[in-house]
């Protein structure tokens, strides 16, 4: 097995694009290991090798397996230059033949009509074919065709249009039909040679158009995605089931399916969940929310203080100990639930889960509300266990607590509500009596805040849209760093 023959690089770049943290070094490692004899026996060995070197978690493993299947295991689907070439050749030939046959059929019919009936074609067309046309063709094209009816050739069109997939070449039809239009309208009673030459011209124009159309198609098909649709859709299905990190999944699937309109539906399923920040990124960001304080039993030797003491006293009486540094940052996460926030439930759930796992919650915690906090906050998303806001403010919050509110603040519905603004204002004022840092995360993009309650609330609290940067900035605010927060908003 020759390394150069393997589409390893393609697999590697695909995995990089899908979000795996890989560098050139990782690629070199695989090559180095292969030189030493690892992973060269068969495909399974190669897979194990790449997996050991490139994959770092079970989620990534699923992603890797799918890509491996796609790029290496499914060798037939490999878009090597040769295969691409033959595929594009096939693309080139088959439609031409198809169009030619149709053209010939059309010509024969035309001839048949010209020779045998010897009747003016106007009679034939409006009565019989127009019905056919109207049933077969959407209204717009049928109009076009109706304008052509007086001409002798249109019989070609009703047959051609439906059979040659009208959707694939929307531009081709009008031009085909308009061209003959520019010709001087021939009299059906004219001599045969005029009829013949006209047919010939039409056939030539038609052929030219077919060729042009094909070139377009080839240009499209030579782009790297020529993998079979079946593999892609199965990949999409697998990913939706298995991968927890939807952002990566969406990215991966979008990348593989971006040129296949057939699986547009699966793309929609995936993107219906709005997850702009991956779970991993969230966890990483929570780590920044820290407030180290020396607290607890004195177990750490304070070298400087001990030496200072010896300096003062002339001898070591006892070493000086100090407590260890512990993270005392506390987070109060307030989540807007239901109503306009329903589409963001998975996002808020993930935010809550990562915050819990990050262990930054101290004795405060996660509370839920609907639209804006009025008198009570709830311990559960279903608004069952209520707790008085005053109670939370006085007993649970301390000046070390950071409050992060996750709500659309009315930006989803795009309306301004005086009541909502006032209630929020009251709540914020109440909070600020006790808490120093409050930040707001809005799942709607900033440009959608304009003219809604969100824009006004953003004047009260530093508000950020829910993105990687936005979340980082919000945490920076909670740590008391306002550097990234611009007070200019709107």
């Amino acid at each position: 097995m020759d390394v150069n023959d393997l589409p390893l690089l393609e697999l590697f770049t695909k995995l990089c694009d899908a979000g795996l943290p890989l560098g050139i070094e990782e690629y070199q490692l695989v090559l180095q290991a292969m030189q030493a004899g690892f992973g060269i026996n068969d495909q399974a060995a190669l897979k194990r090798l790449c997996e050991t070197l490139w994959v770092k978690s079970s989620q990534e493993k699923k992603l890797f397996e799918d890509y491996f299947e796609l790029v290496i295991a499914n060798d037939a689907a490999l878009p090597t230059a040769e295969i691409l070439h033959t595929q594009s050749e096939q693309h080139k030939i088959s439609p031409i033949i198809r169009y030619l046959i149709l053209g010939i059929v059309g010509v024969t019919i035309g001839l048949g009509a010209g020779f045998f009936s010897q009747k003016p074609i106007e009679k034939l067309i409006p009565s019989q074919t127009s019905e056919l046309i109207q049933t077969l063709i959407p209204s717009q094209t049928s109009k076009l065709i109706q304008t052509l009816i007086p001409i002798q050739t249109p019989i070609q069109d009703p047959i051609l249009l439906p059979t040659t997939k009208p959707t694939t070449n929307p531009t081709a039809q009008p031009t085909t039909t308009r061209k003959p239009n520019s010709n001087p309208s021939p009299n059906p009673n004219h001599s045969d040679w005029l009829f013949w030459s006209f047919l010939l011209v039409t056939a030539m124009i038609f052929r030219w158009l077919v060729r042009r159309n094909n070139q377009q198609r080839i240009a499209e098909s030579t782009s790297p995605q020529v993998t079979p649709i079946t593999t892609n859709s199965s990949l999409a299905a697998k990913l939706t089931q298995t991968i927890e990190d939807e952002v990566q999944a969406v990215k991966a699937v979008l990348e593989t399916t971006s040129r296949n309109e057939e699986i547009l539906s699966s793309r929609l399923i995936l993107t219906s969940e709005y997850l702009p920040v991956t779970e991993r990124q969230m966890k990483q960001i929570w780590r920044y929310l820290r407030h180290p304080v020396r607290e607890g039993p004195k177990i750490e030797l304070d070298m400087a203080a001990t030496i200072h003491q010896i300096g003062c006293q002339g001898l070591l009486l006892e070493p000086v100990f100090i407590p260890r540094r512990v993270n005392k940052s506390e987070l109060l996460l307030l989540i807007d639930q239901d109503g306009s926030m329903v589409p963001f439930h998975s996002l808020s759930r993930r935010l809550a889960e990562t915050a819990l796992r990050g262990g930054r919650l101290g004795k405060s915690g996660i509370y839920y509300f609907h639209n804006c906090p009025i008198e009570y906050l709830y311990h559960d998303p279903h608004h069952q266990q209520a707790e008085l806001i005053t109670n939370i403010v006085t007993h649970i919050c301390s000046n070390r607590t950071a409050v992060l509110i996750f709500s659309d603040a009315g930006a989803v519905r795009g309306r301004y509500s005086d009541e909502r603004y006032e209630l929020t204002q009251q709540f914020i004022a109440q909070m600020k009596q006790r808490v120093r840092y409050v930040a707001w995360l809005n799942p709607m993009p900033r440009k959608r805040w304009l003219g809604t309650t969100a824009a006004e609330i953003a004047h009260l609290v530093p508000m950020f849209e829910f993105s990687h940067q936005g979340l980082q900035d919000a945490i920076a605010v909670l740590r008391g760093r306002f550097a990234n927060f611009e007070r200019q908003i709107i």
Partner: protein
Amino acid sequence: MVQAVGGKLLEYTGKVQPQLGERGANGQLLYPYFPNPELVEAVNLAIYLERPLLLKGEPGCGKTLLASAVAYELDLKLEAWYVKSTSRARDGLYIYDAVGRLRDAQLATSNRLTPEQILRIDDPTSYVRWGPLGRAFQQQQRRVVLIDEIDKADIDFPNDLLLELDQKQFFVEETGQEIEAKAAPIVLITSNDEKDLPDAFLRRCLFHYVEFPSRERLIEIVNALFPTSPEALVKQAIDSFWRLREKMQEDKGEAGKKVSTSELIDWFRVLRRYPEDEALAKLDGKIPYAGVLLKRWDDHLRYLRQSRGCE
């Protein structure tokens, strides 16, 4: 690379097993270990590429034991570093006994030290106590270093080890010594997935997920550990264990705590204390000594409900 050029490539096969009752250099009992071929390959890759191998997998599936198995087969010394929540990355390299030095200095001023002890004070390096990784770096022969449960420590811990694992060198700040690895140790790291490890750290590691042994392998393991046990009992016990495990998997999915190999071994040890027919009678459709296997109250309840349902 060094080994490859030198002609002697260390290779782990997973086939060389200690005899029952054989003891290691530190007097600890050695047990046979049955890795699957993928794990063997991952170990060999780590040895060859001189990169740490990060092992994940459900608790009790034998991540920690791998290190001693590798050390046994390759006839290398094992340096185990059991990480605690208070562990700092530097502890694995060295600990500087500043208090000891202070004490000695005090004693020296009051003339209570022997001349040898005074010589010791003059040498600052004598207060450096090497950690597992620090010791392994200074050996001519490669050593196997186990960093057990790395995710127990603070989130900064793995990142603090990056340079040492990558460059295989470190500085002793107190003495200014520069320690460079003479032979790259074979580093095996285990993680229970309690905390996410930093990307930069992951990037430098090889990763292997230790799968739970198959049923056949479980029988092999039990037979190897308890060679005299009757075949019927082994089969029956493994059957019951496997059913329980599958049920747990059904109920809890991939994430929950399930019965593991180490629990099976303990449980079987209890079972074989009884005569074969008695033990088989106990096993008949039930799980005797469930406390050995089921560690959580809801697991117990589920089991009780189930066994009642069977009757």
